[in-house]
Structure formats: C-alpha cells, structure tokens
C-alpha cells in the first residue's frame, strides 16, 4: 500500500500544532511532514537539503500550504512546485488566514487546487481540516 502522507507547510508552530490536533481529532492518522517554511517544503519535495536522500517515490497526497511565510512566501513555493516536472501535478491546497481576494485569485492563477481559509473558531477549523483530509486523502485520486 502506498503511504499517503501530507505535507504541511506553515511557519506558525501554533497553527501547525492546531492543525495536527485537528487532523488527529478527525481520525486522519496519515503521516504529516511539517515544513516550517517554503525552502524546507521544496527541499522535501525535491529531495534536497535536509531531505536529501529520502525516498522520492513517496510524494505527498496533498500539500497544505500557508501563504505568509518568511524566506519564501507560499505563492512562490506554489510557483516552484508547478514549474517543476516532478511536482507539476502535485495537489496543493492553500490554507491561509488571508481573506484578500488577490491572494485567492493569484493562488488559483498559479495553479492551486484549492483555497481554504483558516477560520478563527477552532471547531470550524477542525471541521474544515477533517473535510479536507477526507477529501484529499480518501476521496480524491491523486494523479
């Protein structure tokens, strides 16, 4: 069985924690790889730097990508993902606090598969995560 992993890219540790908790609460027990910024995320996806030498056969089922990050902002990461043959078809879900229209539009422009806002209310957030998880991990068939 192919290992279904989730790549979570978020610079906010609190958010990471909460997301993980939400996933757990939703009984999504897949492995979650956490990248703390865009660079790390790309390193993982391309098997460079920190993740050099990893098993490249294992690619995330879905990438949960935050937008506002240091070093490399989420949209740029998305761009890089889309620009590389290896990761061009990688499902990416933008998960962000931003409610700005331009972010949303730009994300889709750059090829995001989905755009989800992190709600303030944790319940909502957890519910959202659960739905995301079920959809992307179970329902959706990866390329």
């Amino acid at each position: 069985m192919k290992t279904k992993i989730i790549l979570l890219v978020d610079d906010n540790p609190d958010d990471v924690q909460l997301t993980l908790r939400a996933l757990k609460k939703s009984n999504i027990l897949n492995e979650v790889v956490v990248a703390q910024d865009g660079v790390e995320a790309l390193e993982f996806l391309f098997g460079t730097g920190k993740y050099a030498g990893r098993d490249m056969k294992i690619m995330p089922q879905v990438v949960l990508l935050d937008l506002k990050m240091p070093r490399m902002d989420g949209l740029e990461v998305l761009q890089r993902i889309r620009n590389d043959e290896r990761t061009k078809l990688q499902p990416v879900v933008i998960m962000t606090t931003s409610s700005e229209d331009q972010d949303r539009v730009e994300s889709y422009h750059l090829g995001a598969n989905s755009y989800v806002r992190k709600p303030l209310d944790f319940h909502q957030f957890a519910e959202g995560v659960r739905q995301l998880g079920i959809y992307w991990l179970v329902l959706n068939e990866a390329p």
Partner: protein
Amino acid sequence: MQVKKRLQINVAFSIMAAGVIIAMLTTAVHHILNAVETSNIADELVSSVYQQSEFRNEYMWSTNERARVQWFAKHEKIVLLLQSALEKFKDAEDKTIVERMAKDQEPIARIFSSIVENREKPQLNPVLSQEVEDTLVSQMNMKRDNTILDARRLQESASKRLLFSLRTSGWGILCVIITLTAAATVNSWSMGRVITKRITALRNGTAIIGEGNLDQRIDITGDDEFAELSEAFNAMTAKLRSSYLELEKEIDERVKVGQEMRQMATLLEETQSIAHVGGWEVDLEKNALYWTSETYRIHETSPSEYTPTVETAIAFYAPESVPIISSAVSEAIEQGKEFHLELQLVTAKGRLIWVETAGKVIRRDGRVVKVLGVFQDITDRKGAEALRQSSAYHRSLLEASLDPLVTIDANGKITDVNAATEKVTGRSREELISTDFSHYFSEPEKAQAGYRRVFREGQVRDYALDIRQKDGHLTPVLYNASVYRDRAGKVVGVFAAARDISERKKAEDEIKKLNMELETRVLERTAELEAFAYSVSHDLRSPLRSIEGFSLALLEDYAGKLDDMGKDYLNRVRNATMRMGHLIDDLLKLSRVTRIEMKREQVDLSIVAHRIADDLKNRHPERPAQFDIAEGLTAYCDAGLLTVAMENMFSNAWKFSIKASRAVIEFGVTEINGQHAFFVKDNGIGFDMTYANKLFNPFQRLHKTEEFPGTGIGLATVKRIINRHGGQVWIEAKEDKGTTVYFTL
C-alpha cells in the same frame, strides 16, 4: 403744282390772252381799217363813179372842158382808187372785181375819149355822131353801171367784211375773254381750293401746334409752296420742340437747383437752429449788416423788430465787452485780422448771456469787402465748463482705477477705455475705440455671449474670460458688467469692469497642484494603510487563532484536570478571542470600505435586501421573522458597498429584534424634506434618542455586549459607505418600539 406756277400760268394766260386780244384787236382793227378803207374806197369809187357820171352827164350836156377834165381827173382817181383797192382788197373775189373794174376803166376812158372825140369832131355826121355818142354813152352807161355795180359790190363786200371783221373780232375777243375768264376762274378756283385746303390744313396744324402740341406735324405733301411752307413749319415746330424740351430740361435743372438750394437753405436754417450757431456778415460796400435767423434768436429779437447795423449790434454787448468787440471788428475791416472771442452780451429781452463770435474777412483786389463769421450762445458751455471740472475729476478717477474699465455700445463696439484697459490689452485707446470688443479675448464667442447676457439680464457678475494682449499673452479676468442708460432711460451700452484674477488663478492652480499632491499622498497613505490593515489583520489573527485553538484544546483534552473555575476562565478567554476576531474583521471591512474604489451603477436594492433576508433566514431558521421588502427600489450606487451597508443594517435589525416575539424587518423608501430616503425598520429594542448621534462612531455601543453582541462598528461602516456616496444616514428609535435607519444616496 406750285402756286407760283399757277399764278404764272394765270399771268401767262392773261398775257397770252392779252396778246391774243391785242393780236386779235390789232387784226380786227387792221381788218376793220382795211374794211373801212375798202369801204371808203368802195364808197369813193361809187361816189367817184357817180361823180364821173355826173361829169359825163355834165359834159354830155355842156361839153364842158372842165367836165371832161374833171371826168378824166375822176378817171385817174378811180384808176388810182382801183389800184389802191387792188392793194386793199384782199379777197380774191374782190380782187377780181377790182381788176375787172380796173380793166374796165380803160375802155370807159376810151369810150369817153371817143365820146369826147366825137364831140370834138362834130362835123362829120352829127347823127352818126349822135348815134355813136349814144352807143358810146350806152356803153359807158353799161360800163358805168357795171362799175357802179362792182363798186357797190365792193362796197357791200367791204362793209360785209367790215361787219364780219367787227363781228369776228367781237366774238373772238368775247370768246377769248370768256375762255380766259373761265380758265382764270377755273385756275383761280382750283388754286383757291387747293390753297384754301392747304391753308386750312396749315391753319389747323398750326392751331394745334399753337396750343402747345409740339409733336404735331402738318401733313401737307406735294411740291407747292404750301408743302414747302408746311415743311418749313414742321421744321420750325421740330426746332421749337427741341428748344422747348431743352428749355424744359433747363427749367427742371433750374428748379432742382432751386429746390436743392432751398433744401440747403432749410438745412442751414435747421442746423443753425439745432446747433444754436448763427451767422453774420458785414458788407462794407453796401454798408449793411446781415444776420441769420439764429443770430436774431440768440439776440432774442427778430427781423421785424430790429434791423442790424454794426453800431447797434455792438451796443448789445455788455459794457466791458464793447471795447473788445469794437476793436476786433475795426481791425478786421482795416487789417483783415480774424478774431475769435468769448464775450458777454445783453439780449433784447435783457438776459445776460455768454456768446462766442468768430469773424474772418473776404477780400477783393486786396481790399477787405466783407467781414463775416459765426455767433453762438455758449452760456451752457460756460456752465458746462464748471461741470467739466467735475467731469475731469470723474475721469481722473476712472483713469486711476486699477481695474480695466470699458464701455461698449449697443453694436458691440468699444466706446471708451481707461488706462488700465490699455495696459491689459497692450493697445492704445485709439486702437481700441470703435473696434469690436470680443476681438481682445481668447474666446470671442464666450465674450459675446456674456455681452448678450448683460443686455438680457441687465448685469453679469464674475464672468470669466481671458484677455489677450497684443503679444499673445493671456490675462485671466472676471468681469462685472451692467447696462448703462441715457437720461431718457434708454439702454445705451454696457459698462464692464474686469478684475485681474491672474494672481488668484495662480493661487488656485497652486491649490489644485497641492490638492493633487495631497491626493497622491493620500493615495500613498491609503495604500500604505491597506497594506498595514492587511498585514495587521493577518498578523493579529494568527496569534488569535492560537489562543483560541489552544484554549479549546485545553478545554477538550484536559477537561478532567480543570475545575469549573478553570473551565470558566478558559471560556472567557475563548470568548474574548472571538470578540477580538470580530473586531479585526470589522476593522478590516471598514478600512476596505474606505479604500475601495467606488463603481456606481443602477442597483436594485430590493433584490439585495431579499438576498440578505434569505441568508439571515437560512442561517437562523429557528427564528420567526418577517421581512417586508418594497419592490423595485433602485439606486445609483456601488453594489458591493451598498450590500455591505445593508448587511450591516439588516444584521443590526435582526440582532436587536431578537427579543420580539416575531421580528418584523421592513425595507422601503419614503419622502423626507422632498428627498427619497431608504429605510430599514425593525420592531426591536430601540434605544434612547439622546445618545443617537454617538451611534455612528466606531465601536460606540448603547447596549451591553451580553445582551446584544456586536463590536459597534456596523453603523460606522454604514455611515462611511453612505457618506462616500454623498448621502446622509440617520437613525430614529423609540425605546422598546423599534429602530429605523434612514439613508439617502
């Protein structure tokens, strides 16, 4: 035929006749004479023959020597007579007779001679002698009888001839006379007729012409004197006519000239009278002074009352003026010096007036023969001079004005300008006056439109125009213009004053520039603010989420380890974070409302209201609520912003009517102070109007959060949105009766 000819014919006839008559007479006379002569001869012959016979008898009786001699004398006479008769008697017959007679004489003579011989020789046989004598005598008697017969025949013939001659002559003359007379009569008569006819024609023709119809021509043709006469008449008539026409023309000319002269004279009179300028003339040769009617008028007298002379005229002047005018006139007469004086004069009615008199001289052959000039009452002018001093004062004021002043007549031509106008147009007074005023503006049509408006409305204020200087440089000005009237109240033109607003314009332009800079800066600030708001909201939310999330995590995962107080604290924490989240959201929304670019369009507010209402109902299906939404309410506004505003208003209405058994929320339009105002009305809790004006401040609330959750930003947002649309928003409420939010757009 010419009359002359006719007359000549007559004369010829007469001469001819006379000639004929004379000839005839002569012939007649001749014939008569001849006849008489022949008659005489015949008579003589007869008598001679008888006498001869007597003598024979006598001889026979007395054998008288004397008788024989006389007989032979007679014989000679008879022969002579017969000779002359032969000459005289022209007629052949007569001539024959005469010749016979003549022939017979010889025999007669011989016979007598024989007789004589016989007698002389008586001796022989007396009887025989007697017989011979008898035979001879009988022969002689026979011959004598023949002769007498012949002589009587001759006599007869002669007298017949005479009678014939007489008669012929008589008749002939008569005939000639008659013929002549007839001819003469006929000729005369026909001549007379022709002459009469022609004379009549001539007379009629000339009569018509005489009456003045110079176009009439006498129509007599022919080649006689009348025709010539009529031709001459016609020629004369034609000549007369042309002379007449010329005369007429000349007369017309003269009349016209006369009229013109009369017109001129009248005009002169009138102009003199209007201008109150009189004339005068001193004729030195005639020693007379002439005045025109105006001069009389100025002196307040008339030609019937006064005849001007130089001395008496000078006497009119005031005492102090008399020597001046006297010497002026004298110098003019003597030296030909012209004069021009202003003097005082006392009129015939005793009025003291100022007059101006000017004189010049007319010379002939170097001598002054006339002095003439003009005469004017200048009392007004003298008075006007005083006025002019004040006028000069007014004028100096106009010239001193810094504002360009101009007067324009009813035809759009400049009639006067002051120095400031000259300066601002860069043109001199002379260049400007009588020219079209609109010429000096950069927008002539606009200038003319303003000018027309002044006439229409009586005045125009602050009319902006640009004056164009000669070098092309423009000066922006504001015009205050009004119509000005003459003393009769009739509008004469436009008086306009310009205010140079170049400084002001410059200041305005500065302001505009500054405003634009300000705008840009504002935009920059806004952009900065946007970025700020965005990042703030984003950055604030993040920790907020953490707080919320972990509080919940605590509550859920460590519920066992917490007592009620602990749980309570955590719940408060959570609530607080929720509130903060709302605040951040509202702040963001408010800031977006201010930032966002408005796009106005026709929006159906009723549909928006319906959508909001449906959304509310969907989200809270358990609440009984009634929405009364008026249909078809449209407004020209930004759809997004109005939606936000209405969401706020509706959510407020929804929130504050929660205590009502049944929330009734109304949306409609009403008329307030003549304006359309939309309203959102609820039957909720209402509030005390005393604090109404605070409601629109951000975060201002009139109710406790526990009772009615909310950040207090809703109405502030609504106010911002409505204000951005240039509208008004206000609120009315009654405690426990409900609230109505009114807004206009």
